[in-house]
């Protein structure tokens, strides 16, 4: 960086001509441009930034991105402005083959730069930490023992109109998602329904390889690892549809591993979940499923018992059917 004190004096060779105050010029231009850019970002861009504000975590992420842009825009403008100014004002004139003036260090400029950038970085570090802790992990998977937990009443059942935390298990399998609701008898569905204004705990796991549960508009993303319960939180704030995608390359159909979820009213959700539970209980599907657990060992079929599985060897997952002595690299 430079300042008026270290400004080259090209053009000052004209006798009697006064060197303009480049530093103040640059500062004034920067101030106007930076202020304009930040105002545009805040008022025009911010409401349209991804991932939107469909949930508490999405809203925080949108705010975080806006703050990052507002913090970064003045720095970018300062750099670009200085480059542009230098190219225009201090360019070599035709026929001027003389050396440029020597450049000296300037303690004030150096200190301003170091202090300014340090302050921005420290602010962003503190801001990022607050924004990670405050919204309980900001929608990211926190592993099986989350440090930052979303407030909500833990209950074995879920009742509309209360602050009961809704538990939803997300199960990834090549190449589709399914969802279990332990507070509704452990019923399972290919549809992800969530009630509005309800704290939700996602328990994300996988039955085969590593997937990643990414509910884009909800601002929730958590890896789905086999034998791991990866916990993420959010609170849906708007009715509507959101997209669920796999965000971890998981095989040939990874790109097609997506479906849609819906945020509905609390009463509609209760009716839907109770209805699916009753239907699956009546048609025997609930009895087909293993008891709800945070993770599943695909080699264990509770209805048969592990001993029988080992003897008969009838499950694919870690190699009883396809023995571990016989894997080959695809």
């Amino acid at each position, binding site marked *: 960086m430079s300042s008026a004190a270290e400004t080259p004096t090209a053009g000052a060779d004209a006798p009697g001509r006064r060197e303009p105050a480049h530093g103040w010029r640059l500062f004034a231009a920067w101030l106007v441009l930076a202020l304009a850019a930040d105002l545009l970002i805040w008022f025009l861009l911010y409401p349209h930034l991804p991932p939107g504000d469909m949930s508490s975590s999405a809203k925080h992420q949108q705010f975080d991105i806006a703050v990052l842009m507002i913090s970064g825009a003045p720095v970018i403008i300062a750099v670009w402005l200085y480059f542009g100014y230098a190219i225009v004002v201090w360019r070599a004139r035709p026929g001027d083959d003389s050396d440029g003036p020597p450049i000296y260090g300037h303690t004030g400029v150096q200190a301003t730069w170091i202090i300014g950038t340090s302050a921005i970085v420290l602010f962003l570090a503190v801001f990022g930490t607050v924004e990670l802790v405050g919204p309980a992990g900001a929608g990211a998977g926190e592993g099986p023992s989350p440090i930052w937990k979303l407030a909500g009443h833990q209950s074995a059942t879920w009742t509309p109109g209360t602050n009961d935390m809704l538990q939803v298990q997300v199960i990834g399998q*090549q190449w589709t998602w399914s969802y279990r609701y332990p507070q509704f008898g452990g019923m399972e569905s290919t549809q992800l329904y969530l009630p509005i204004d309800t704290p939700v705990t996602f328990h994300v796991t996988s039955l085969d390889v590593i997937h990643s549960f990414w509910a884009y508009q909800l601002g929730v993303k958590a890896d789905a690892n086999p034998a791991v319960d990866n916990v993420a939180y959010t609170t849906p704030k708007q009715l509507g549809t959101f997209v669920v995608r796999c965000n971890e390359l998981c095989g*040939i159909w990874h790109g097609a591993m997506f479906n849609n979820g819906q945020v509905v009213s609390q009463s509609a959700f209760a009716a839907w979940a109770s209805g699916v539970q009753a239907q699956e209980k009546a048609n025997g599907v609930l009895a087909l499923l293993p008891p709800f657990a945070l993770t599943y060992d695909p080699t264990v079929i509770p209805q048969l018992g592990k001993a029988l599985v080992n003897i008969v060897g009838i499950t694919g997952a870690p190699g009883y059917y396809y023995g571990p002595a016989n894997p080959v690299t695809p």
Partner: protein
Amino acid sequence: MSVPVRAAVLTVAFLLVVGLGVFVGYYYIGSATTQLQTIHYTASGGQVNVMLQEDPQNDSATTPDWVTYYTQDPTTKQWVHTTLFSVPANTKVNVTIYGYDGCTPLRNNYWSQVQGVIGNTVTVQQFSKNNTPLGPAQPESFINSWSACNVGHTFAIPELGLYVPVASPNANDSVNNLCGSSPCTPTSGGAYSLETFSFMSPSQTGSYRWQCLVPCGGGFLNGNGGPMQTLGWMAGFMDVVSS
């Protein structure tokens, strides 16, 4: 070297690199998808009949021990080693699957449930290796792959919410009695199941992915490789075209 010469050399080198990239992409990616034949099913009376079979082996020279689906050409009645087929939009699709392969339980028994088909049921009839019916065709709303050795593979189109477990041949009758030469036929000496179901094709034209949800890549780690990861074996596309 003059500037024009240098520019020409650079341009030629750039074009060579781009051309090489295009060739590699076309040769490997393009050929991988164009080798498979698409079977076209046309509607009659507002319905279309799709015929599939799943076998414990196949007739390829390179990977003869991979499990696979075959699709029947409605014109020649020949079984074609492909998993690409097309159906008209907004049409009732009647699917018949011959299940010649043995059983493998599902990782998630939820997929034992029949979903997304008309009536949410399939009909299953078992046949012995002598092609003798072992009983009448039975309607099933789920085929429990965990209570016994009942499910061979699945036919799933996740985008349509269609999940169908495909029955394996009767466990007792199929021991050492699976079809040994593909494509199998009812008289080729293997026990088999005959499963039928119907669903409505979507009104939206396009390619809909379908797949098996049983980890049936035998010989591969956790059953996930080989035929599970290769188009034309245990996964394919249903092209929905204008009716």
